[in-house]
């Protein structure tokens, strides 16, 4: 696993997230569910807890956009780059953006939003890319059944190096 230079992390374990807009590829409830489940992947192995807010600025602002979308890192159309997220910090730090030119799904066709989001939230919490091909934080997308998904050991070690383990387990 790898962390960003200077190991940026959130100074609190209580974080907020806000879904700014939705992809038309999936129902609102499917998007809500995928994103909530993606955050839980990290909450299960750390003291981090996530609360959704519906207005104002959250620590993790989540949005869908195509091409130039306001952050100087434009998306590239279908294929290629699927999403990106920013390391913990104030402002844009922690925010996750998904390329609306992709087809996001809750299944195995297109790109599974839960899997993409779980990876991006790893960045939002302070993990960089891993060179372990089996890790969630490996940069290339690969499908695995979300229903049987278990956070790989490499990612657990990475996130716990920043936040420690889940005191409730």
């Amino acid at each position: 696993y790898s962390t960003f230079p200077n190991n940026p992390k959130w100074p609190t374990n209580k974080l907020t997230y806000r879904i700014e807009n939705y992809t038309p590829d999936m129902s609102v409830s499917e998007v809500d569910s995928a994103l909530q489940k993606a955050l839980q992947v990290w909450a299960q192995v750390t003291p981090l807890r996530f609360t959704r807010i519906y207005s104002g600025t959250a620590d993790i602002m989540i949005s869908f956009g195509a091409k130039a979308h306001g952050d100087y890192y434009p998306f590239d159309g279908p294929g290629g780059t699927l999403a990106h997220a920013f390391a913990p910090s104030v402002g844009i730090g922690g925010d996750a953006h998904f390329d609306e030119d992709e087809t996001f799904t809750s299944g195995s066709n297109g790109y599974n939003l839960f899997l993409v989001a779980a990876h991006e939230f790893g960045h939002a919490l302070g993990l960089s890319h891993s060179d372990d091909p089996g890790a969630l934080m490996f940069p290339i997308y690969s499908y695995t059944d979300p229903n049987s998904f278990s956070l790989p050991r490499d990612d657990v070690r990475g996130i716990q190096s920043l936040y420690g383990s889940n005191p409730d387990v």
Partner: protein
Amino acid sequence: VPILPPNGREQDEEMAETYLKRFYNLTEETEPTFRRSFGQMNMKLSEMQKFFGLKVTGTLDADTLEVMKKPRCGVPDVAK
């Protein structure tokens, strides 16, 4: 004279350069492209090949191109 569209090899090299700029911090230099191609470009290709567990050749081979064409996260693999 007519400007010919880039052939397959040139397209691959352009794609590789864009990929390395985006994900491996290949920087624009004032040096001519051919000089960069024998220096920083090879170094960045080697860096990428090592990250992905490919054979480290420092050259744009088929396996490296295949990885570059896969869908991925937009966050760089190396820090700027």
